[in-house]
Protein backbone atom coordinates (compact mmCIF):
# COMPACT_ATOMS: atom_id res chain seq x y z
CA UNK A 1 0.00 0.00 0.00
CA UNK A 2 1.29 3.43 -0.90
CA UNK A 3 1.02 6.18 1.70
CA UNK A 4 1.72 9.84 1.58
CA UNK A 5 2.98 11.54 4.71
CA UNK A 6 3.01 15.28 5.18
CA UNK A 7 5.70 16.27 7.66
CA UNK A 8 5.49 19.75 9.21
CA UNK A 9 8.74 20.80 10.86
CA UNK A 10 8.73 23.95 13.00
CA UNK A 11 11.19 25.58 15.36
CA UNK A 12 10.48 24.92 19.05
CA UNK A 13 8.74 27.82 20.75
CA UNK A 14 11.87 28.60 22.81
CA UNK A 15 13.96 28.97 19.64
CA UNK A 16 14.25 32.35 17.94
CA UNK A 17 13.00 32.42 14.35
CA UNK A 18 14.75 35.31 12.53
CA UNK A 19 13.03 34.41 9.23
CA UNK A 20 9.61 34.50 10.91
CA UNK A 21 10.41 37.88 12.49
CA UNK A 22 11.52 39.27 9.12
CA UNK A 23 8.34 38.01 7.43
CA UNK A 24 6.26 39.57 10.21
CA UNK A 25 8.06 42.88 9.57
CA UNK A 26 7.20 42.56 5.86
CA UNK A 27 3.53 41.95 6.65
CA UNK A 28 3.47 45.00 8.95
CA UNK A 29 5.06 47.06 6.16
CA UNK A 30 2.18 45.98 3.91
CA UNK A 31 -0.32 47.22 6.45
CA UNK A 32 -1.26 43.90 8.06
CA UNK A 33 -0.89 45.44 11.52
CA UNK A 34 -3.01 42.76 13.17
CA UNK A 35 -0.26 40.14 12.70
CA UNK A 36 1.27 39.40 16.11
CA UNK A 37 3.54 36.49 15.18
CA UNK A 38 4.86 34.52 12.20
CA UNK A 39 6.69 31.22 12.64
CA UNK A 40 8.44 29.75 9.61
CA UNK A 41 9.10 26.06 9.06
CA UNK A 42 9.49 23.26 6.55
CA UNK A 43 6.88 21.20 4.78
CA UNK A 44 7.91 17.81 3.39
CA UNK A 45 5.81 15.28 1.50
CA UNK A 46 7.09 11.72 1.76
CA UNK A 47 5.56 8.96 -0.35
CA UNK A 48 6.33 5.43 0.80
CA UNK A 49 5.27 1.83 0.48
CA UNK A 50 4.18 0.11 3.70
CA UNK A 51 2.13 -2.90 4.77
CA UNK A 52 -0.35 -0.82 6.70
CA UNK A 53 -0.98 2.54 8.29
CA UNK A 54 0.76 1.63 11.56
CA UNK A 55 3.91 0.56 9.76
CA UNK A 56 3.86 3.63 7.52
CA UNK A 57 3.46 5.92 10.53
CA UNK A 58 6.27 4.30 12.52
CA UNK A 59 8.61 4.46 9.48
CA UNK A 60 7.90 8.15 8.98
CA UNK A 61 8.31 8.84 12.71
CA UNK A 62 11.67 7.08 12.59
CA UNK A 63 12.95 8.93 9.52
CA UNK A 64 11.75 12.24 10.93
CA UNK A 65 13.56 11.71 14.23
CA UNK A 66 16.75 10.58 12.45
CA UNK A 67 16.95 13.10 9.66
CA UNK A 68 13.98 15.28 8.72
CA UNK A 69 13.84 17.18 12.03
CA UNK A 70 16.51 18.08 14.55
CA UNK A 71 14.93 17.63 17.95
CA UNK A 72 17.46 19.98 19.52
CA UNK A 73 15.65 22.90 17.86
CA UNK A 74 12.58 21.59 16.05
CA UNK A 75 9.17 20.03 16.65
CA UNK A 76 7.28 18.05 14.03
CA UNK A 77 3.81 16.88 13.16
CA UNK A 78 2.98 14.07 10.74
CA UNK A 79 -0.22 13.61 8.76
CA UNK A 80 -0.59 10.33 6.91
CA UNK A 81 -3.00 9.21 4.21
CA UNK A 82 -3.21 6.25 1.83
CA UNK A 83 -2.36 7.52 -1.64
CA UNK A 84 -5.52 6.05 -3.20
CA UNK A 85 -7.48 8.65 -1.25
CA UNK A 86 -5.37 11.35 -2.87
CA UNK A 87 -5.68 10.18 -6.51
CA UNK A 88 -7.60 12.34 -8.96
CA UNK A 89 -11.20 11.18 -9.30
CA UNK A 90 -12.25 9.64 -12.66
CA UNK A 91 -14.32 12.73 -13.35
CA UNK A 92 -11.10 14.68 -13.50
CA UNK A 93 -11.11 16.71 -10.29
CA UNK A 94 -7.92 17.63 -8.47
CA UNK A 95 -6.70 15.98 -5.28
CA UNK A 96 -8.93 14.45 -2.67
CA UNK A 97 -12.42 13.04 -2.97
CA UNK A 98 -15.07 15.69 -2.90
CA UNK A 99 -12.79 18.68 -2.44
CA UNK A 100 -13.31 19.88 -5.99
CA UNK A 101 -16.92 18.83 -6.43
Amino acid at each position, binding site marked *: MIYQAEVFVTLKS*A*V*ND*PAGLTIKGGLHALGFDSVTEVRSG*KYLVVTLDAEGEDQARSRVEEMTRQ*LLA*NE*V*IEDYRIELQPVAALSPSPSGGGRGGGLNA
Partner: protein
Amino acid sequence: MRTGIIVFPGTWSDRDCAHAVGEILGQPTRYVDYREERLDDLDLVILPGGFSYGDYLRCGAIARFAPVMEAVTDFANRGGLVLGICNGFQILQEARLLPGALLRNASCEFRCEWVNLRVEQSESAFSLDSRPGQVLRIPISHGEGNFFADRETLEAIERNGQVVFRYCAQDGRVTAESNPNGSLSNIAGIANARGNVVGMMPHPERACEDLLGGTDGLMVFRSAIHALARVAA
Protein backbone atom coordinates in the same frame (compact mmCIF):
# COMPACT_ATOMS: atom_id res chain seq x y z
CA MET B 1 50.72 15.54 13.15
CA ARG B 2 49.12 13.32 10.52
CA THR B 3 46.14 15.37 9.44
CA GLY B 4 43.10 14.30 7.45
CA ILE B 5 40.81 16.87 5.87
CA ILE B 6 37.37 15.52 5.07
CA VAL B 7 35.89 16.48 1.74
CA PHE B 8 32.12 16.16 1.38
CA PRO B 9 30.27 17.13 -1.79
CA GLY B 10 30.01 20.91 -1.38
CA THR B 11 32.95 21.39 1.01
CA TRP B 12 34.86 24.57 0.09
CA SER B 13 37.54 25.24 2.73
CA ASP B 14 39.45 21.97 2.35
CA ARG B 15 42.34 23.49 0.39
CA ASP B 16 42.64 26.44 2.76
CA CYS B 17 42.95 23.97 5.65
CA ALA B 18 45.51 21.87 3.76
CA HIS B 19 47.50 25.03 3.00
CA ALA B 20 47.51 26.12 6.65
CA VAL B 21 48.38 22.74 8.17
CA GLY B 22 50.41 21.24 5.30
CA GLU B 23 52.24 24.22 3.79
CA ILE B 24 52.49 26.76 6.59
CA LEU B 25 52.93 24.36 9.52
CA GLY B 26 54.59 21.63 7.45
CA GLN B 27 52.51 18.75 8.78
CA PRO B 28 51.74 15.63 6.68
CA THR B 29 48.26 16.22 5.35
CA ARG B 30 45.86 14.27 3.16
CA TYR B 31 42.31 14.72 1.91
CA VAL B 32 39.78 12.17 3.12
CA ASP B 33 36.94 11.37 0.75
CA TYR B 34 33.49 11.30 2.41
CA ARG B 35 33.11 7.65 1.33
CA GLU B 36 36.21 6.46 3.21
CA GLU B 37 35.69 4.25 6.24
CA ARG B 38 39.09 4.16 7.95
CA LEU B 39 40.97 6.96 9.70
CA ASP B 40 43.51 4.82 11.60
CA ASP B 41 46.47 6.58 9.98
CA LEU B 42 45.51 10.00 11.35
CA ASP B 43 46.12 12.09 14.48
CA LEU B 44 43.86 14.99 13.58
CA VAL B 45 40.65 15.06 11.54
CA ILE B 46 39.37 18.40 10.24
CA LEU B 47 35.82 18.90 8.99
CA PRO B 48 36.21 22.09 6.95
CA GLY B 49 33.72 24.79 6.03
CA GLY B 50 31.45 24.86 3.03
CA PHE B 51 27.95 23.87 2.03
CA SER B 52 27.97 20.08 2.27
CA TYR B 53 25.11 18.57 0.27
CA GLY B 54 23.96 22.08 -0.60
CA ASP B 55 22.94 22.72 3.04
CA TYR B 56 19.66 21.03 2.06
CA LEU B 57 17.20 20.30 4.88
CA ARG B 58 19.57 21.74 7.55
CA CYS B 59 23.27 22.59 7.42
CA GLY B 60 25.19 19.37 8.05
CA ALA B 61 22.08 17.17 8.30
CA ILE B 62 22.88 15.02 5.26
CA ALA B 63 26.69 15.04 5.68
CA ARG B 64 26.21 13.63 9.15
CA PHE B 65 25.16 10.33 7.52
CA ALA B 66 28.01 10.18 4.97
CA PRO B 67 29.94 6.90 5.24
CA VAL B 68 33.02 8.58 6.75
CA MET B 69 31.07 9.92 9.73
CA GLU B 70 30.90 6.55 11.46
CA ALA B 71 34.70 6.48 11.39
CA VAL B 72 34.84 10.09 12.62
CA THR B 73 32.60 9.18 15.56
CA ASP B 74 34.78 6.16 16.46
CA PHE B 75 37.90 8.30 16.06
CA ALA B 76 36.49 10.98 18.38
CA ASN B 77 35.32 8.41 20.94
CA ARG B 78 38.81 6.91 21.03
CA GLY B 79 40.21 10.36 21.89
CA GLY B 80 41.37 11.38 18.40
CA LEU B 81 41.53 15.12 17.75
CA VAL B 82 38.61 16.46 15.72
CA LEU B 83 38.14 20.08 14.62
CA GLY B 84 34.95 21.24 12.92
CA ILE B 85 35.12 24.64 11.27
CA CYS B 86 31.92 26.45 10.22
CA ASN B 87 29.96 23.81 8.25
CA GLY B 88 32.17 21.24 10.00
CA PHE B 89 30.89 22.56 13.35
CA GLN B 90 27.30 22.20 12.10
CA ILE B 91 28.02 18.60 11.03
CA LEU B 92 29.54 17.71 14.44
CA GLN B 93 26.38 19.01 16.15
CA GLU B 94 24.10 17.10 13.79
CA ALA B 95 26.21 14.00 14.60
CA ARG B 96 25.71 14.77 18.32
CA LEU B 97 29.47 14.88 18.85
CA LEU B 98 28.95 18.44 20.14
CA PRO B 99 25.91 19.89 21.92
CA GLY B 100 23.48 22.52 20.64
CA ALA B 101 22.64 23.68 17.13
CA LEU B 102 23.44 26.59 14.82
CA LEU B 103 20.45 28.60 13.63
CA ARG B 104 20.12 31.20 10.91
CA ASN B 105 21.92 34.43 11.81
CA ALA B 106 19.65 36.78 13.76
CA SER B 107 20.16 39.40 11.03
CA CYS B 108 19.12 36.88 8.32
CA GLU B 109 22.28 38.05 6.51
CA PHE B 110 25.36 36.12 5.46
CA ARG B 111 28.20 37.68 7.47
CA CYS B 112 31.73 37.65 6.04
CA GLU B 113 34.05 39.77 8.18
CA TRP B 114 36.89 39.75 10.68
CA VAL B 115 35.76 39.32 14.29
CA ASN B 116 37.40 39.35 17.71
CA LEU B 117 37.27 36.20 19.80
CA ARG B 118 37.99 35.94 23.49
CA VAL B 119 39.62 32.68 24.54
CA GLU B 120 37.60 31.25 27.44
CA GLN B 121 39.69 28.20 28.28
CA SER B 122 43.09 26.84 27.28
CA GLU B 123 42.41 23.20 28.16
CA SER B 124 40.95 21.94 24.89
CA ALA B 125 43.19 20.35 22.24
CA PHE B 126 42.68 23.44 20.06
CA SER B 127 43.33 26.17 22.65
CA LEU B 128 46.30 24.76 24.63
CA ASP B 129 48.64 27.39 23.17
CA SER B 130 46.50 30.32 24.29
CA ARG B 131 45.71 31.92 27.62
CA PRO B 132 42.19 32.62 28.87
CA GLY B 133 41.22 36.21 28.15
CA GLN B 134 43.47 36.47 25.09
CA VAL B 135 41.76 38.15 22.12
CA LEU B 136 42.16 36.60 18.65
CA ARG B 137 41.29 38.20 15.33
CA ILE B 138 39.85 35.61 12.94
CA PRO B 139 37.30 35.92 10.10
CA ILE B 140 33.79 34.48 9.97
CA SER B 141 31.88 33.59 6.80
CA HIS B 142 28.45 32.12 7.39
CA GLY B 143 24.69 32.55 7.22
CA GLU B 144 23.82 30.06 9.95
CA GLY B 145 26.12 30.46 12.94
CA ASN B 146 23.65 31.51 15.59
CA PHE B 147 24.52 29.17 18.47
CA PHE B 148 21.54 27.74 20.32
CA ALA B 149 21.16 25.22 23.12
CA ASP B 150 18.28 24.76 25.55
CA ARG B 151 18.78 26.32 28.97
CA GLU B 152 19.82 23.10 30.69
CA THR B 153 22.40 22.28 28.00
CA LEU B 154 23.75 25.83 27.95
CA GLU B 155 24.19 25.79 31.73
CA ALA B 156 26.03 22.46 31.51
CA ILE B 157 28.33 23.74 28.75
CA GLU B 158 29.19 26.83 30.81
CA ARG B 159 29.58 24.90 34.06
CA ASN B 160 31.94 22.34 32.47
CA GLY B 161 34.06 25.04 30.86
CA GLN B 162 33.22 23.80 27.36
CA VAL B 163 32.97 27.29 25.85
CA VAL B 164 36.29 27.83 24.06
CA PHE B 165 35.69 31.10 22.17
CA ARG B 166 33.26 34.02 22.52
CA TYR B 167 32.68 36.92 20.14
CA CYS B 168 33.97 40.07 21.84
CA ALA B 169 35.04 43.66 21.33
CA GLN B 170 38.66 44.50 20.52
CA ASP B 171 39.40 44.94 24.23
CA GLY B 172 37.93 41.55 25.12
CA ARG B 173 34.60 42.74 26.50
CA VAL B 174 31.74 40.41 25.55
CA THR B 175 29.07 42.78 24.23
CA ALA B 176 25.86 42.55 22.21
CA GLU B 177 27.44 44.76 19.51
CA SER B 178 30.31 42.32 18.99
CA ASN B 179 27.95 39.37 18.46
CA PRO B 180 27.71 38.95 14.65
CA ASN B 181 24.93 36.38 14.50
CA GLY B 182 22.82 36.31 17.66
CA SER B 183 24.62 33.38 19.31
CA LEU B 184 23.54 32.68 22.89
CA SER B 185 26.12 34.05 25.33
CA ASN B 186 28.22 35.17 22.30
CA ILE B 187 29.39 31.57 21.85
CA ALA B 188 31.67 31.14 18.81
CA GLY B 189 33.27 27.79 19.62
CA ILE B 190 32.79 24.90 22.03
CA ALA B 191 34.53 21.67 23.04
CA ASN B 192 33.14 18.31 24.10
CA ALA B 193 33.59 17.38 27.76
CA ARG B 194 36.84 15.54 27.03
CA GLY B 195 38.30 18.48 25.08
CA ASN B 196 39.41 16.47 22.03
CA VAL B 197 36.54 17.63 19.80
CA VAL B 198 36.08 21.34 19.08
CA GLY B 199 33.69 23.16 16.77
CA MET B 200 33.99 26.82 15.86
CA MET B 201 32.24 29.12 13.39
CA PRO B 202 35.25 31.39 12.67
CA HIS B 203 37.84 30.20 10.15
CA PRO B 204 41.31 29.87 11.75
CA GLU B 205 42.73 28.50 8.46
CA ARG B 206 42.09 31.92 6.89
CA ALA B 207 44.13 33.70 9.56
CA CYS B 208 47.49 31.96 9.24
CA GLU B 209 49.48 34.42 7.12
CA ASP B 210 50.20 38.15 7.42
CA LEU B 211 49.50 38.40 3.71
CA LEU B 212 45.88 37.44 4.39
CA GLY B 213 45.45 39.86 7.28
CA GLY B 214 46.62 38.03 10.37
CA THR B 215 48.11 34.91 11.94
CA ASP B 216 45.98 34.43 15.06
CA GLY B 217 44.46 31.25 13.60
CA LEU B 218 47.79 29.41 13.83
CA MET B 219 47.24 29.02 17.58
CA VAL B 220 44.37 26.58 16.92
CA PHE B 221 46.50 24.18 14.83
CA ARG B 222 49.66 24.58 16.91
CA SER B 223 47.63 23.68 19.99
CA ALA B 224 46.69 20.38 18.34
CA ILE B 225 50.37 19.62 17.66
CA HIS B 226 51.15 20.26 21.33
CA ALA B 227 48.15 18.26 22.52
CA LEU B 228 49.53 15.25 20.61
CA ALA B 229 53.04 15.79 21.97
CA ARG B 230 51.55 15.87 25.45
CA VAL B 231 49.78 12.54 24.89
CA ALA B 232 52.95 10.98 23.46
CA ALA B 233 55.12 12.21 26.36
